[in-house]
């Protein structure tokens, strides 16, 4: 598991938006985004980033305190130590007050043309 220096998140909201600040958890600690733009209303796109500088045992996007948040797509860019930057995209998911969604992906395995 590499050390995660920074991650950037882009969330496209579907037809049910989130009327609260966006929070994520890193290793179980719930935090807001330092730097963000856009919104989480229905059909809107939210973009945020956070400097972690730690090992990500878990990284999740937290659901609303009440109601539901329908997400169309999540795109995450990871900047890890000693690893080429990489990204992952996740499909549709609905979050509520009982759920959070995993947004961590390990770096891709090395491949060779043979």
């Amino acid at each position, binding site marked *: 598991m590499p050390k995660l220096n920074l991650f950037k998140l882009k969330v496209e909201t579907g037809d049910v938006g989130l009327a609260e600040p966006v929070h994520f958890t890193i290793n179980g600690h719930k935090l807001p985004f330092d730097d963000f733009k856009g919104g989480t209303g229905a059909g809107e796109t939210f973009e945020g980033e956070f400097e972690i500088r730690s090992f990500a045992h*878990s990284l999740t996007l937290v*659901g609303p305190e009440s109601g539901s948040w329908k997400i169309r797509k999540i795109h995450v860019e990871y900047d890890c130590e000693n690893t080429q930057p990489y990204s992952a*995209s996740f499909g549709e998911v609905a*979050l509520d*007050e009982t*759920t959070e969604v*995993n947004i961590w992906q390990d770096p891709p*395995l090395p491949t060779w*043309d*043979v």
Partner: protein
Amino acid sequence: MTSILKTLSALFSGSKSEINMPSAKLAEENNMPSTNQEPVSSPAEEPTAENFTEPPAQRRVIQAPVLVESSGEGQASEKVLIKAEPEEKGDQCKLMVNRPLFAGYSWFFKDFESAAGSPLAEKIFSSDLVDTLLIHNSTAIVTKFGGKMQGDWLPLAKELGQIIREVLESGSPLLSDDIIKNLPPEDQVRKDIQKVIDTEVNPGVAAHGGKIVLTSVTGNSVTIQMGGGCQGCSAADLTLKQGIHSSFRKAVPYVGAIYDETDHAAGMNPYYS
């Protein structure tokens, strides 16, 4: 130091005045922490009905589908292009080819003898290092004898890539006609695998609170989920490879790829998180 010597000397001589030196003073003189201090009252407030708040409920971590964003590189190429991807643990390597090797189906070759009649498998097993071979759609997954490092795979992966390329370019059949003709329908695969799960696998893992569920069958490839005590267990990989795979292959020899889609990190005891 002098004080300690004096104390020890007094201890053996029986002089009480020196022995009764308070340990706090001894510690101060010798720069040691005291073990004889008055207990310090805790400043923490006692919980009362007024200041007590419920901790936040623990949320359930769910998995969103991971979208594969293919660049399409090589798909349209006339050349046979092959990428090798050794597994992190180093015990197997996936060779991904830009054309089908066994479209829609999979086949597991457990050794050189089982490759007889399948030109691609026979040539791959011509390398003494190859232990087993699984062919599924456009990938060949190889395990080898010895060596558990990712880097160890490079020379063998190059050799295998060359073999696959030569067989594909020759235009000869890749697999034996017997394999292709005798593939059973999906319903038969589902029924036979379910029987093994019900009669062999689940009674075995139930002793550890585990449970295996067959989630899908595609062609002769099956996907399972490990639940209960198996989900997140440190021995899940061993159970899967040495227990479940062996039982499935022994009872249902035509089963091809066996995939595990368990989210081990979400288990009750998540060793894998």
